[in-house]
């Protein structure tokens, strides 16, 4: 299941035209405290967070996160999106809350 397929199956919105959506996340992680994410998220994960600070991209790069989905309609500032482009990390947003989003992603086979 690629990010493009997730976009087709769930009410998600792509935050940048030039993100690579053909990557397939391997499992996922949810967390807003970046030190916790650095410790427990795994390479290839899709990451669900309401944290939008630019450090999110630094942490995603360190961990090897494949893409980030912001729940609850959260949208990151422009500088975070710009940094994500540079680091080739796809950013998506959704009106769904984190719990519902995780359940749906899990159902679609990302686990």
């Amino acid at each position: 299941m690629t990010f493009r397929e997730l976009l087709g199956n769930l009410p998600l919105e792509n935050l940048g035209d030039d993100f690579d959506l053909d990557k397939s996340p391997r499992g996922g992680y949810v967390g807003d405290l970046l030190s916790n994410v650095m410790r427990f998220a795994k390479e290839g994960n899709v990451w669900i967070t309401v944290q939008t600070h630019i450090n999110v991209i630094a942490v995603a790069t360190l961990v090897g996160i494949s893409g980030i989905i912001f729940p609850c309609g959260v949208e990151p500032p422009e500088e975070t999106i710009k940094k994500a482009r540079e680091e080739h990390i796809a950013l998506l947003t959704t009106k769904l809350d984190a719990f519902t989003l995780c359940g749906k992603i899990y159902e679609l086979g990302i686990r």
Partner: protein
Amino acid sequence: MRFALDLHIHTLLSPCAGIEMIPVNIVRRVQEVGIDIMAVTDHNAVGNAESVIKSALKYAPGLGVFPGIEVTSKEEVHILGILPSVESARKLESMIHSHLVNPPVKDSLAEQLIVDEDANFIRYEEHFLMGATDFSVEEVSDLIHSFDGIVIPAHIDRESFGLIYNLGLFPPDLEVDAVEVSKFAKESTLVNLRRLIPPDVPVLFSSDAHFLDDIVPPRSFLELMDKSFDSLKEALKNYGYVRNHKTGG
């Protein structure tokens, strides 16, 4: 002269602080334990700063008291702003109040007491102080600096509301004048933290006192010309140079 500092002390205005944190108790205890300069730093509010300053003049002459505030950023990071005057602190507070995202929760206001220098009740603070603002850490820092204040991320060694815990790394564009660690931080913690923060940033120890018993003898000392705000600001600015010079860096 060498002065002892504690730049992070709450009053009974903070809902999480004890009712005994009235101005006179604070200034007497602070002076008793050997602190020369303190800052009043309630959560997202400055309502008791002036009373503590007046109380010090009356009950603890010689004690230096600066108005301050502990701002909650949208990343839920606590950042101290120490201000040059009560007037600038009030202006900063009104900006902070208009950016608090959480409405008051039931009965919370009764715990947010503003009093005078003799602890007579003045009013309740009507904003919900335990919530977060919608300012990023960088915006909080810029805002405090725009009022000529001193920016100090609070208790960066702690897991709750600490900069490093919440944001993982020291944000590359965040401008600070010092960082604060808990008064009880171990040497090993400090060595680890040093690697995570820019090399020229001073590390201060504060009590983050919420109760009278939290006010303990100081662990941070600075060489200052006098107890003025400008001297403090200057000393923090020069700290990096002195430090680097000593270590040959």
